[in-house]
C-alpha cells in the first residue's frame, strides 16, 4: 500500500497545472497499490483549494496556515513539510520541480532521512519496488532508479506526467494542522522580487516558442524574435549562450538548467542544439530550426528546417506569417 503525499500550489484559487500533474501521478501510484492520495496546502492564509484537490483525486487534504509561510520562505517551508510528513506518514512525497521544489525537496529528504529523486519523468510501482525515471548526463541518457529507502521525496518535472482528471463532487477528508514554527527559523529574507516584463504569454505556458542563441550574435536580433512571437501569440526563449552573454534575461533560458517547454511549435534560431538545450524542448510537437550549419545537432530533432543565415530569412518569414495568420 503506497500512500502518496503531494505538495499543492495554487494558481488563481485553483490547483496549479503542476499540482494537477502531481495528483495524476499520485493517483496512478496509489491506485496500483490500494494506497491513498494526500495533499498538503501551505500558506500564510487559507486558500479555497481543498474542493479542487478532492475533485482531482486527493483523499485527504492537510491544511496549515502560518504567517512564516508567506512567500515560500525555504526554512519555514521545509520545517512545515517535515511536520506534516510526520503526521501523514506517506511512502512517497511528490513536489513540483520548480524553484521552490528544487530547494525544498533535498532539504526535506535530508531531514526525514529519506530517499530522494529529482526531475522525475515517470514513476511506477513494480511489485514491491518503486521505479523512477530521469534524465542524466544533460539529457544524453535516461536512468531508471529504484528507491532503497522510504519515504522517498521526489520532484516531478513539469509537463512530463498526465494531469489528473476532474471528477465533480468527489469528496475527501480535510485535516487542519497546527504547525509549531518559531520565527527564528527563517534565516533568509526576501528583500525584493523583480518580475521580468512578460509581453503576451508566459514562456512555460506558450503554445509557440521562438528561441534565439549565440548565432544571433547580439541582443538586437531578439527584437525580431519578439515580433515573430507576438505575431504567433507565443513567447521568446533563449539558449544559455544568449542568456550568459546578457542579451536577454536569465529566466528566459530553455534547457536542462532552467525551463522545460513543450509548445505546439518551437522555432530555434541560431541555436546549435546542445543536449542540455534539447533537454528543455524536445517535448515540443513541431520543431523548426534555422541555422547556417547543416550539421548542427538541432536538425536531428527538428521536423522542419532551413539551412541559412537568419538575417536573410527572418524578415520574409515574418512577413509571410503575418499574411497567413
Amino acid at each position: 500500500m503506497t500512500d502518496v503525499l503531494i505538495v499543492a500550489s495554487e494558481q488563481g484559487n485553483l490547483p496549479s497545472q503542476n499540482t494537477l500533474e502531481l495528483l495524476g501521478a499520485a493517483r496512478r501510484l496509489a491506485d496500483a497499490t490500494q494506497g491513498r492520495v494526500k495533499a498538503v496546502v501551505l500558506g500564510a492564509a487559507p486558500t479555497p483549494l481543498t474542493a479542487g484537490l478532492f475533485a482531482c483525486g486527493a483523499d485527504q487534504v492537510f491544511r496549515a496556515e502560518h504567517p512564516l509561510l508567506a512567500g515560500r520562505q525555504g526554512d519555514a517551508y521545509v520545517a512545515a513539510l517535515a511536520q506534516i510528513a510526520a503526521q501523514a506518514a506517506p511512502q512517497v512525497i511528490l513536489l513540483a520541480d520548480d524553484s521552490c521544489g528544487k530547494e525544498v525537496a533535498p532539504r526535506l529528504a535530508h531531514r526525514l532521512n529519506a530517499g530522494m529523486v529529482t526531475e522525475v519523468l515517470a514513476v511506477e510501482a513494480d511489485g514491491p519496488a518503486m521505479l523512477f525515471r530521469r534524465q542524466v548526463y544533460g539529457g544524453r541518457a535516461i536512468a531508471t532508479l529504484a528507491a532503497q529507502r522510504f519515504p522517498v521525496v521526489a520532484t516531478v518535472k513539469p509537463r512530463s506526467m498526465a494531469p489528473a482528471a476532474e471528477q465533480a463532487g468527489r469528496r475527501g477528508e480535510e485535516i487542519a494542522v497546527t504547525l509549531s514554527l518559531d520565527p527564528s527559523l527563517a534565516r533568509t529574507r526576501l528583500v525584493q522580487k523583480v518580475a521580468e516584463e512578460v509581453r503576451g504569454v508566459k514562456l512555460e505556458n506558450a503554445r509557440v516558442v521562438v528561441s534565439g542563441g549565440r548565432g544571433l550574435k547580439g541582443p538586437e536580433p531578439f527584437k525580431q524574435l519578439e515580433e515573430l512571437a507576438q505575431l504567433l501569440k507565443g513567447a521568446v526563449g533563449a539558449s544559455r549562450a544568449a542568456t550568459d552573454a546578457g542579451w536577454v534575461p536569465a529566466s528566459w533560458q530553455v534547457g536542462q538548467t532552467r525551463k522545460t517547454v513543450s509548445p505546439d511549435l518551437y522555432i530555434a534560431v541560431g541555436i546549435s542544439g546542445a543536449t542540455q538545450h534539447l533537454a528543455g524542448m524536445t517535448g515540443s510537437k513541431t520543431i523548426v530550426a534555422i541555422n547556417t550549419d547543416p550539421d548542427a545537432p538541432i536538425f536531428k530533432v527538428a521536423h522542419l528546417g532551413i539551412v541559412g543565415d537568419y538575417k536573410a530569412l527572418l524578415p520574409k518569414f515574418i512577413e509571410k506569417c503575418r499574411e497567413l495568420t
Partner: protein
Amino acid sequence: MHIIVCIKQIIDPEIPADQFKLDPNSMRQLRGGLSLVISAYDQNALEVALQLREKVGGKVTALCLGESGAMGAIKSALGMGVDDGFLVSDQPLLESDPFGVAHVLAKAIQKIGVPDLVLTGCVSGDTGDKVMGPLLAEALGLPCVTFVSKVEVKDGKALVRRIVEDGYELVEAAFPLAVSIISDDSNVPRYSKLRDIMAAAKKQVPTWKAADLGLEGARVGVGAARLQVQDVSIPQRESKCEILDGETPEERAEGLALRLRELKVI
C-alpha cells in the same frame, strides 16, 4: 571573508553525441580519451568567489571529491586565482549517493573550518541532480539559497540575486551561508594568467582519505545509497527533418511559412 567552492571534475559535457558512451557494467559514462573539466557552473561559482574576494578581501578555497586525477581540477582552480585547494580521494567514497557526497564534503569543510560562504554549482554537468547546495546546507546546519547568480555583501550580510521562473529575487541572509550558483553575464569565468598557472603547479594540495575525515562506512559509499541504478540507456532519436529548399533565402522562408500553415501549426 572565507569562501569554500565545491568543484566537481567531470568528462567534458559538451562533446558531440556520437562520442558519448556508457559502460554497461558501472552504468556510468565511459571516459575513453575524452578530456576532463571543472563542471560548468562550478567555474561560475569560482568566478563569483574571486569577485567577492576582490571586493571585500579574504580567501577562496577549492574543494573536490574525486579520483586522484581530480587534482587537475584543483590545479585549474588555483590557476584561476583561488588561494588553496583540498582533494578528497578514496575509491569507495566515489560510489556514494548525493547524501554520501554531501556528508563527505561537509566533513571536509568542517576539517578546513566552516567558512562564511559555501558555494556549489546549481547543477553538475554529468549526473546533474541539482541537490548538492541544499544538502550541504542541511549537513552543515546553514541557511541556503539556490540558483543564485550574484552575491554581494551589505551591512555585514549577504545580499544575493536568485533567478526564479519569472525574473529574480533579492534575498538577504546572515553569514555563514550555502549558495548554489547559476550563470549569467555577471559571472563569466575568467581566463587564468600564466603566472597563476605556474604558481598553481608548485602549490601543495592536501589529499584526504576517508580515515582522515573520520568517515564511517554506514553513511558513505555504495552500501549507504538510498537509490539503486537499475538501468541507464541512451534514447535513440530518429532524425526526420524536412529541409526546405528554394533558390533564394526569401523563397525558403516563404516555403517554411506555407508548410507550417499546411500542417496547421500556424
